[in-house]
């Protein structure tokens, strides 16, 4: 670890924190339906969309209607992607003549993108036409992230409203999020990325004759426009197979830094939106504080582990850290930071190969996802995931003092706690359950690239990443098989929607309750005690759930490495 490395990490954190308030202010205006500086241009477009779509923007929805609208929207999104992939050979913008994608891979990819996972069983430059990349993947990057944000806003309304039956209008929330938040940032961001060296072209791949006379086919494409939303919307699905490690998908140290910022910025600002909407910004800062504690702990461990390298490297006298699967322009620190950021949020883009990380360095990304990606988290998804843990923490605190727990003026009662537990328990059911099946099913075992405990970790990571809607991978695992395409798709689906529906039920039930003013017996939820309590609940629930699985994977591998056992 170096001083300049830590300076980069703290600079990163400082900029994220500095952006929380302005962006939180702007997004609160957007979701409250107020006008913004972009309204003169965008408002007519917005009204046109409602008019053609038959949406009455004044009419709000019950939580169930809101959820059904969201689900219908996703059925359509699924059909669009699946259809485009199956038919890509017949459609335009296909200069490389990519053939139709197989049914199971198309199914997996379509589920992957509507759930904001972007698991890459597809090969990017070797599998997909430009049309699929744009119309299939780029569009769903926008809509799945807009959906996540809309759902979080709906849950916030549950907290901030009093005695109401409705939680907003899904169509209005998604449209406004796309038009006023995501698109304008992406337009500027795309141009920045192209300036840094990212291609943005519809031309065919370029054939080059190298200095030594060899032939090199260089894949290009409309990369920048997709990468902008891929990062900002915490989607993470790469244009290229190597994702953000590919020099075209992340050309410079600056592009890398800004990409990391863009992963966190909306998720972090959502805590401020929460604070503003419930009428006390300190409530938002307290939640961001919980996230910050867990984040910095993860960064420190991964950076330390990667800078130390492996016993194999040390034995050969190679210093400078674990550079296997890392790029020179990022080095140890920017690769470690990126890995923690991308898994703390549910982004899943990678700028280094997580499979080649040290055992402990790779365990932190795994833990980040197993905690439910609540450390900033996916856009929107991170906030509603974190609020589920807050509900539990408040409940535990209430038990300790024997009072009905309250949070930002709402009584937390049996229904909320049950729903929160349901949402939280669904995740380990999927990733532990499917991992258990995979390790005793010979065709699934054959997909492992590494032997020994590392092979087990590859499988555990895959199902964790899919269930958490992250999308990063221990890439050695051959995921493009019938077994993994179907089981991973089911993990992504359950991990997304079985968390959303209980969260929306909570939103509905909270909105219907009366707001009560805080009394002398109310636990203050803005101070260090509250932050510590939530961190504790997260770690205890998380630790009890997945520690045994970690012991079989990264922990035993670390011990084996120190004993010079190779597999």
């Amino acid at each position, binding site marked *: 670890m170096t001083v300049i490395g830590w300076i980069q990490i703290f600079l990163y954190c400082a900029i994220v924190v500095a952006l929380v308030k302005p962006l939180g202010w702007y997004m609160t205006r957007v979701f409250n339906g107020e006008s913004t500086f972009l309204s003169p241009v965008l408002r007519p477009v917005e009204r046109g969309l409602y008019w053609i779509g038959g949406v009455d923007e004044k009419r709000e929805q019950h939580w169930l*209607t809101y959820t059904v609208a969201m689900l219908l929207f996703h059925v359509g999104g699924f059909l669009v992607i699946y259809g485009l992939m199956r038919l890509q050979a017949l459609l335009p913008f296909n200069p490389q003549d990519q053939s139709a994608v197989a049914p199971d891979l198309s199914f997996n990819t379509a589920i992957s993108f509507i759930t904001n996972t972007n698991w890459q069983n597809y090969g990017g430059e070797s599998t997909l036409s430009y049309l699929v990349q744009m119309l299939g993947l780029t569009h769903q990057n926008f809509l799945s992230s807009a959906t996540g944000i809309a759902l979080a806003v709906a849950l916030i309304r549950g907290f901030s409203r009093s005695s109401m039956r409705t939680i907003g209008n899904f169509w209005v929330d998604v449209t406004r999020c796309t038009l006023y938040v995501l*698109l304008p940032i992406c337009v500027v961001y795309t141009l920045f990325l192209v300036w840094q060296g990212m291609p943005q072209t519809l031309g065919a791949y370029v054939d080059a004759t190298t200095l*030594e006379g060899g032939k090199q086919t260089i894949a290009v494409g409309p990369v920048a426009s997709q990468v902008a939303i891929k990062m900002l919307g915490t989607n993470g699905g790469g244009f290229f197979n190597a994702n953000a490690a590919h020099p075209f998908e992340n050309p*410079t140290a600056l592009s890398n830094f800004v990409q990391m910022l863009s992963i966190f910025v909306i998720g972090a600002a959502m805590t401020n939106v929460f604070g503003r909407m419930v009428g006390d910004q300190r409530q938002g800062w307290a939640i961001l504080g919980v996230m910050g504690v867990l984040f910095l702990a993860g960064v420190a461990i991964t950076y330390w582990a990667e800078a130390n390298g492996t016993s194999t490297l040390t034995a*050969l006298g190679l210093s400078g850290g674990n550079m296997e699967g890392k790029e020179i322009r990022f080095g140890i620190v920017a690769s470690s930071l990126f890995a923690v950021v991308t898994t703390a949020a549910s982004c899943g883009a990678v700028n280094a190969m997580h499979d080649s990380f*040290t055992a402990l360095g790779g365990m932190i990304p795994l833990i980040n996802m197993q905690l439910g990606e609540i450390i900033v988290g996916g856009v929107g998804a991170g906030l509603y995931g974190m609020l589920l843990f807050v509900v539990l923490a408040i409940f535990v605190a209430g038990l300790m003092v024997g009072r009905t727990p309250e949070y930002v003026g709402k009584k937390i009662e049996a229904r909320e706690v049950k729903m929160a537990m349901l949402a939280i328990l669904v995740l380990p059911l999927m990733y532990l359950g499917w991992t258990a099946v995979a390790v005793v099913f010979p065709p699934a075992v054959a997909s492992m690239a590494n032997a020994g405990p590392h092979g087990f970790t590859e499988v555990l990571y895959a199902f964790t990443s899919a269930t958490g809607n992250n999308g990063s991978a221990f890439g050695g695992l051959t995921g493009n098989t019938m077994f993994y395409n179907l089981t991973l798709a089911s993990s992504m689906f359950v991990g997304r929607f079985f968390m959303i529906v209980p969260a929306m039920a909570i939103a509905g039930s909270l909105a219907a309750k009366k707001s009560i003013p805080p009394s002398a017996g109310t636990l203050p939820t803005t101070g260090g005690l509250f932050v510590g309590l939530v961190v504790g609940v997260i770690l205890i629930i998380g630790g009890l759930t997945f520690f045994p699985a970690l012991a079989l994977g990264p922990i035993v591998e670390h011990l084996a490495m120190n004993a010079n056992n190779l597999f």
Partner: protein
Amino acid sequence: MLREIRPAIILLLLLTAITGLAYPLAMTAIADVIFPKQAQGSLIEKDGKVIGSALIGQEFKEDKYFHGRLSATSAPDPADSTKTVSAPYNAANSGGSNLGPTSKALADRLKEDVDKLKAENPNASVPVDLVTTSASGLDPDISPEAALFQVPRVANARKMPEERVRQLVTEHTQGRMAGLLGEVRVNVLALNLALDAATAK
């Protein structure tokens, strides 16, 4: 709830058209005007022919060139399309080795490469980036240590004074952005082009 079906279909189609077609196509058109070189892939041409991209590493094996990092990229086997064969620096199929820290295959590969490099230059310690594969398999850069390590071999192959080659390495060493972000590095293709130019003189 039935009345949600119409917006589900129509808004999906309209927003798809906006974000999936209008946005990327407009960005392509604008980028082509403002940053035409980057938008096409930062291609380098020599005598009218494309010889590569400034951002994409390419394979160097000859002694007279600086070598880049190891690349684990592959390509479909021409004999059997269900299998793949090793194809370093395949810029149409990026990827890393994905070998883990306790991999025996990785340990064996490292040992073999370290021994080879020690034989080539016994006077310097082997830089870690010369024996590890990059994440993309297309890393255009190496560390300055890795470049300096290769100076004796390159100078010998080109019958150039080592001092001159070392000077070229120094000239092509790029620092951190604003002294802060990223790592110090040398772009291998740019360095090799400069070498060729210096030899031609």
